[in-house]
């Protein structure tokens, strides 16, 4: 009960601060904030899967595609029926979550039959298949070109010169905060302990009466639903969906974000989501400053972030597997008094 209240207060506090922040920054930063929030929905879900449950998924980009395409189709159906109210967004996002959830059940059931690398392999196959789906069912999904998404404009009550980006930031932040609140409570609940028990020792977990396969499927389905919401959010933010936006690379980026932020802590997912938005921007300003020939610049442009991301993934995994949040935890523990740190150690490592 105490954790529930604490999580709720932290979420409310973060909400108020972020609400103020959307007014303090220019529209471009608001859009970036919205992107971070959308990524956060996915990385938080993936943290639960990888960090708490010890399973790896390479298909979260594809699950985001499921959410995004669902939202696109539902929004466009609403637009065809001349519904332009804000509630259409909520309905389509919920349907996007449900669609990703169903996909998650199918994939999770197939992969949970066996331990080990099978989930990674199956989800890799799912990630590779996305463009093929868009092409084969091009009547619905419009192939490589993708769909445009009809999104209602911000409510008129906010005033006519209210920036769209700020409205988008609000939508995405509400979604992200809800996801964080729900996942934080889940992680602290009986289910969170079951996830961790299965991750640490499957045999011991089974002896303690935990249904291992069912727990693994549940963790996968939860994170799939989060990915669906993230994908739907991206569809609304960019007002278009296309298969190239949800490639295997996106799944690997999400994995990087989770690992870099710190496996096993939801706060790490925040750092990861921020890094996903800021790193490419940083790198592109770096290549712009380097004064290269156009051909060389073109080759570097797409590939340099990939190389840096991959290298970061390897270095973090070998050198600091607990990521940014792990480093922060170590730092705060050192600053606190030694006695206190000894007392809180048990709780701080979870």
């Amino acid at each position, binding site marked *: 009960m105490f954790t529930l209240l604490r999580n709720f207060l932290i979420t409310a506090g973060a909400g108020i601060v972020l609400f103020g922040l959307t007014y303090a920054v220019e529209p471009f930063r608001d859009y970036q904030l919205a992107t971070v929030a959308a990524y956060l929905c996915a990385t938080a879900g993936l943290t639960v899967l*990888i960090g708490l449950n*010890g*399973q*790896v998924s*390479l298909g979260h980009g594809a699950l985001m595609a499921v959410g995004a395409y669902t939202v696109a189709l539902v929004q466009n159906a609403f637009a065809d029926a001349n519904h332009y109210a804000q509630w259409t967004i909520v309905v389509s996002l919920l349907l996007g979550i449900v669609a990703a959830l169903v996909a998650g059940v*199918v*994939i999770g*059931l*197939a*992969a949970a*039959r*066996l331990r*080990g*690398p*099978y989930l*990674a*392999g*199956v989800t*890799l*196959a*799912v990630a*590779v*298949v996305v*463009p*093929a*789906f868009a*092409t*084969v069912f091009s009547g619905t999904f419009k192939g490589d070109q993708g769909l445009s998404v009809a999104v209602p404009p911000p409510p008129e009550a906010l005033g006519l010169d209210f920036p769209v980006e700020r409205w988008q930031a609000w939508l995405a932040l509400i979604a992200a905060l809800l996801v964080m609140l729900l996942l934080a409570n889940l992680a602290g609940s009986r289910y969170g302990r079951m996830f961790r028990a299965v991750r640490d020792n*499957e*045999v011991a977990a089974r002896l303690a009466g935990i249904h291992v396969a069912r727990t693994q499927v549940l963790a996968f389905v939860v994170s799939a639903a989060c990915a669906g919401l993230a994908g739907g959010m991206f569809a609304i933010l960019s007002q278009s969906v296309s298969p190239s936006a949800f490639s*295997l*690379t996106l799944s*690997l980026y999400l*994995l*990087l974000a989770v*690992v870099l932020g710190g496996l096993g802590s939801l706060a790490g997912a925040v750092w990861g989501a921020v890094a996903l938005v800021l790193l490419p921007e940083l790198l592109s300003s770096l290549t712009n400053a380097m004064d290269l020939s156009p051909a060389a610049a073109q*080759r*570097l442009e*797409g*590939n*340099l*972030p*990939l*190389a840096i*991301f*991959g*290298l*970061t*993934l*390897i270095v973090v*995994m*070998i050198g600091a*597997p607990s990521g940014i949040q792990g480093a922060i935890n170590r730092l705060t523990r050192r600053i606190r008094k030694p006695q206190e740190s000894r007392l809180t150690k048990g709780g701080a490592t979870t």
Partner: protein
Amino acid sequence: MQRFIFLTLDGLSHGAVYAAFALAIVLIHRSTRVVNFAQGAIAVASAYVGYSVAAGSGSYWLGFIAALLSGVIFGALIERVVMRPVEQGPPLNPVIVALGLVLVIQAILGMIYGNDFKPLPTPFSRTAWTIGGVAVLSPYDLFVFGAVLTLMVGLALLFSRTKAGLRMRASAFAPEVSRLLGVNVGRMLTLGWALAAAAGALAALLVIPTELGLNPNAMDLVFVSAFTAAVVGGIDSPAGAVIGGLGVGLVLSYVTGYSSSDVTPIAVLILLVAVLLLRPGGLFTSTRIRQV
């Protein structure tokens, strides 16, 4: 009927390549319990080395040898430098490092060669002979069969007849005991990765000319197909990997031939999920429970 014969032979030719690639996956999984998700990227990197050498020297065979050698070097280097530190940790860590390698290798290849498709030459004609008006095999298909067969026989002889092969098997199944008996287990792991990467390089060299061409992502779908083949064969069995590879090749060839090549990736996914749901232990091994 003519079409069926053609698709069968074409499927077997592709299946032979999947078998070689699945063998590479099985080799590493047997010795380290790791599915090497960077296998495809390493194979593509070797193929690029072969492409550069072949273009520079004008000889396909020099490029061929260079690609295999570079595979050996890449495999050994990667095991020694980045995989060794994470091998003892949680089973998830090597997987994540391998995925990081995929990003790095593909990005570096993209920076050096660009992301466009480059034609990889073939040593023999790809025009099929016709027997009684039915297109059957091309000289290149025969070369593919010969190369994959040589690889399999070579590996079988290595593991069953040589001391190095015996040591590798021993360190895969009982690392502690092998270490006590004086086997350098670490070196055996490096050797295993080197062999697997060379097998992967061979598969890439054989399959890329029959597909769109050389590209940093050229082996993504091949990897998924070969992983499916390895799962079909029960991921620890070399013989299963070969049969699984041929089976997957045939299924995909029929799907591509009778439907369209756009459907092929979906067919791979359905096949993989179906095998995992129906026979999770693979078709050719008795399921054993392995714990702790």
